[in-house]
């Protein structure tokens, strides 16, 4: 017998011992980070960065497969006893000696998870994790000239890349309301002093917002640079237009923290078939929110249509993709992303 078959047998036997629970239910009590467990992490420390941002140091479980600089990780955090999932960019380099990873979180006004992580979370807490994901990354063949165009908390994935590799020619153009709001300001100034990058800091409260049309005043050779941009929707929309106008859209990489909602329409009655619950929903609320409010167990992650952590079979009726307005109708095998889909008339989804 092969060792795999042997192990399956042993596991089957163990399951007979622990039924109706699984052996892992008992092992989790002892070591939630062990190999083979559902991926989790333990918060080791929380360091304030600014008055409303903090870096969270996480020891990932043994199953952690590592990340690529620029990627994000989905975390499941219990806030007031309720498990909430959000995405955060990894801000530590991949070769950190102690195997820890960091995420850096900016508290949003009324933001549930961000405020919890910045102000209330305690070291020692175990959180849920998914493997790192996302294609807003440094390519393996490093570009010669790079521009990081960032604003606010959008600096996080760029910082992951800056810390990962020392490139020959790096410019960072970062906007924040004031000097005190610049996350990683000390690190960035150290890097600039070491000539690892050229830093241009825009304090928008005094300097005004960045006008992309006048980008060459700050970075004359911007068009020659491979650019990674992350920040509020307005800045990213303007950047995409600017790069496209110059015919070099392929040199611009953008990452959004929130979905671009384009189209909404009529809602309808949404039935969650596994939970056997039906609620009325409007045409603009994502089915993910509708389900969560109705007490349905809804898997999720980034909540903006990129991680596919929320995909759910559409059993009947129709839903609208809020990003494109496309109406998707039920057919066997049709899966929808609940975080960017709203009811388009009555529909049934399998949750």
């Amino acid at each position, binding site marked *: 017998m092969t060792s795999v078959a042997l192990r399956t047998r042993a596991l089957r*036997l163990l399951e007979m*011992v622990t039924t*109706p629970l699984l052996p892992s239910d008992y092992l989790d009590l002892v070591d939630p980070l062990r190999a083979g467990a559902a991926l989790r992490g333990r918060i080791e420390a929380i360091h304030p960065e600014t008055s409303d941002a903090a870096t969270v140091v996480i020891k990932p479980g043994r199953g952690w497969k590592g990340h690529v600089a620029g990627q994000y990780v989905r975390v499941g955090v*219990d806030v*007031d*006893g*309720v498990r909430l999932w959000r995405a955060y960019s990894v801000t530590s380099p991949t070769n950190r000696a102690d195997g820890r990873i960091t995420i850096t979180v900016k508290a949003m006004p009324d933001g549930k998870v961000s405020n919890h992580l910045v102000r209330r979370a305690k070291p020692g807490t175990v959180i849920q994790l998914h493997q790192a994901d996302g294609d807003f990354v440094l390519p393996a063949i490093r570009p010669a000239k790079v521009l990081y165009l960032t604003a606010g908390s959008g600096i996080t994935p760029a910082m992951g890349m800056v810390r990962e590799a020392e490139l020959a020619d790096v410019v960072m153009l970062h906007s924040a309301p004031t000097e005190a709001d610049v996350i990683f300001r000390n690190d960035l100034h150290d890097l600039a002093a070491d000539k690892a990058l050229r830093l241009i800091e825009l304090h928008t409260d005094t300097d005004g917002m960045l006008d992309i049309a006048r980008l060459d005043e700050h970075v004359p050779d911007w068009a020659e640079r491979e650019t990674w941009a992350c920040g509020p929707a307005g800045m990213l929309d303007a950047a995409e237009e600017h790069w496209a106008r110059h015919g070099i859209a392929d040199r611009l990489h953008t990452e959004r923290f929130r979905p671009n909602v384009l189209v909404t329409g009529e809602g309808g009655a949404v039935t969650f078939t596994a939970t056997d619950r039906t609620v009325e929903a409007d045409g603009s609320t994502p089915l993910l929110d509708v389900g*969560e409010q109705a007490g349905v*167990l*809804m898997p999720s992650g980034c909540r903006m249509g990129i991680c596919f952590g929320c995909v759910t079979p559409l059993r009947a009726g129709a839903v609208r993709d809020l990003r494109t307005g496309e109406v998707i109708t039920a057919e066997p095998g049709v899966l929808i992303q609940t975080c960017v889909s709203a009811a388009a008339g009555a529909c049934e989804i399998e949750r």
Partner: protein
Amino acid sequence: MTAIDPTAHLSDQQIEQLGRELDALRDEVISSRGERDAAYIRKVISVQRKLEMTSRGVLLFSLFPPAWLIGTAGLSVAKILENMEIGHNVLHGQWDWMRDPKIHSTSWEWDHVSPAAQWKHSHNELHHTYTNVIGKDNDLGYGIMRVDEDQKWQPFHLGQPLWNFVNACFFEYGIAAYDLELGRNLHKRRRNSPEFRARVREVGKKIRKQVLKDYVIHPLLSGPSFLTTLAATFTANLVRNLWSHSVIMCGHFPEGVQTFERRSIVGETRGQWYLRQMLGSANISGGKLLHIMTGNLSHQIEHHLFPDLPSNRYGEIAPKVQELFERYGLEYVTGSLPKQLFSAWRKVFRLSLPNRGVKTPDLAKERIAA
């Protein structure tokens, strides 16, 4: 059964006002659910699992009488916790708000021969909807007992103290049987319906797994202690069955608890529904340990008013509920475990015999219908 209608003094408006007050109490708890509650259930689950593993570990040496005693006692307590404070309450959806897929009514399976899905249907949808409605609520006499003077006496009822005791000993099988609605479904026509047969297969599978674990695998693991471990798991299951049967009997059976007729619940309002739950349930008084060991069904009244609130909150709202009973002039039936158990058993014995004396009309039932 009462000669005097316990709700006669309440106007329809008052009943609806009572309903609004209870709704407000419910909202208060829901808006304050949080970390403390989540920590509570996680702690209970962790303690239960550790206790079960340790007890089963000790039972590997059950050949030695002290090990047998400690192991059996520990396993009995673990099984009681698992069924009552954890399983029953998780399956009610009391912890669904935590959105933890591992502690959720849609994913939980319990240490019981009735599969969670079937139990949820018969318990949450039938028993909690039709609380104490004769002929609709299986928990009321489990279809084998006479539970109210109004029910016609038949010679079969003479044996009901015995039926009740046997049901108590093998309670989990009794529950599986009425979750399958065996009484109804064994008629020829239904027996062959594919849906019923699929459910029977489910139960069969669950029984097989449970029996294999308790009566084959763990005894085998005990080696020379095979027989004594077998006796230990059997005893633990028996203790758990007797205990949960007793707790449930105390919830709806003691004197002072009302039963209702089918027609009385037609067109019931929210206020009237609450009122039926209030009159159809009884509490058990005691300390913290008793409440946990009964899965907080010692707060049966509060549980029936709000079946999906976290169990650790029932004790906290009990004084407010009791105050409502007083203010609305209703009887809050409660008593110690021995007292309530005695009262319930006395009723079982009394109703096994035909009625004595003149039958009095039961006004409560008429009135809730009105």
